[in-house]
């Protein structure tokens, strides 16, 4: 075992860690936007929207991420759209995460006590105002811890985008392994970086859980 390998590639790995975080962050943010829309569809009064939302969640949770990723990659190639691999990567992560985030948001909405919406209705609030001022603020608070968990999951899932060539942690570990002929050290290094990032995120998540018992939230 030669730890010097890890030290020499430290800079390389740090940049790759940055790429991993960036790709995952883009994925989760875009996933939130899409996921909110899917969630809205799921709770809509129109049956066809509810169906569409349910199908989306079923498909994007049922198909393995690797398959989704390659599908988008080849889909774009098939129709001659020349996009950089990064777009396929972030797109796949976002579309997949959106399905999980939609369910998290839906659960959070259900967790808001019914009575609050009723009080607003009895006072004559419009549906939109009830959504904006009463339901959403609380749903967002409730969903923050599970969303952070989802971010951690997405970060791990991002290792798959190495197959389309993105220079993130896993890909870089593979490169180091083949350049130095020391796969054990290379992958250990990559693993340690992932671990470090995830431990920080987990600490953030624990902080969020504690803080959200603050004034106002249940």
């Amino acid at each position, binding site marked *: 075992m030669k730890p010097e390998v890890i030290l020499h590639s430290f800079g390389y790995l740090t940049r790759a860690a940055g790429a991993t975080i960036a790709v995952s962050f883009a994925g989760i943010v875009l996933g939130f936007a899409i996921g909110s829309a899917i969630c809205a569809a799921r709770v809509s009064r129109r049956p066809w929207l509810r169906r569409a939302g349910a199908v989306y969640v079923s498909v994007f949770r049922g198909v393995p991420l690797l398959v989704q990723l390659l599908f988008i990659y080849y889909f774009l190639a098939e129709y001659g759209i020349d996009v950089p691999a990064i777009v396929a990567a972030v797109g796949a992560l976002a579309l997949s995460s959106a399905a999980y985030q939609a369910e998290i948001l839906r659960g959070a909405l259900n967790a808001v006590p019914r009575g609050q919406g*009723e*009080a607003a209705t*009895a*006072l004559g609030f419009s549906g939109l105002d009830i959504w904006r*001022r009463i339901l959403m603020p609380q749903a967002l608070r409730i969903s923050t811890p599970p969303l952070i968990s989802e971010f951690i999951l997405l970060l791990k899932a991002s290792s798959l985008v190495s197959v389309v060539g993105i220079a993130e942690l896993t890909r870089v570990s593979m490169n180091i392994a083949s350049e130095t002929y020391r796969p054990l050290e290379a992958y250990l290094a990559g693993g340690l970086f992932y671990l470090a990032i995830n431990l920080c995120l987990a600490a953030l998540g624990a902080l969020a859980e504690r803080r959200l018992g603050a*004034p*106002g*939230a249940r």
Partner: protein
Amino acid sequence: MIELAKVMKSFGAHPVLRGVDLSVQRSEVVCLIGPSGSGKSTLLRCVNFLEPYDSGEIRIDGRLIGYEDKRDGTRGRMRTRTLREMRREIGMVFQHFNLWPHMTALGNVAEPLRRVRGLAMREAADRAMAMLTRVGLAAKAGAYPSRLSGGQQQRVAIARALAMQPRLMLFDEPTSALDPELVGEVLEVMKSLAAEGMTMLVVTHEMGFAAHVAGRIAFIDEGRIIDEGPPAHVFHESAEPRVRQFLQTYHDRNAF
């Protein structure tokens, strides 16, 4: 002011209101009492159409709520906008307060003024403050509901409903969720409202309140009003066996 005629409602196959007739005059305080499952809360919630009723009529100041007579003579659902307008004139206080936890006491009272009455922030805050003072909670204006006792929360809820300057107030078991020592402060506020001439329809278990403040009491059981009249009549002179039985268990449990 409130007219209920032959109101019926079922939850699926289960009938809850089987033809209720009741009227509440302006500035009258009417208390609805009865055993659990009698339909009294459901009836109250039909008055502001929080629960839709299936047939019969509920009129507020002569105006039918929840439904409109269409041009072809049939009855259709009232437009949401019209319903919302009617609800602005009806105040409701819930058993579990239903304060919004992410807003302060002042925020809770001011929010409907801003969103529904369209007042500007400054004006809404001023009016909200006045209402909180009215219920004795000016000092707690900046507190979040989680920091308030049950009695305080309920008083904020009353202030929130009052701030809208409703023509009548509905109370759904306002003190049932409170610890005994906190019940008094809420009843005091309700008494002062009654003294000012507010029209009130109150579902309650507080017989003392009903006996002293109500102008009329209606006893409801199995979806029908069995007996009604001034407190003296219902409490002491009722000929209905179910009423006497209900009041008997109440006396037994509360005499010490």
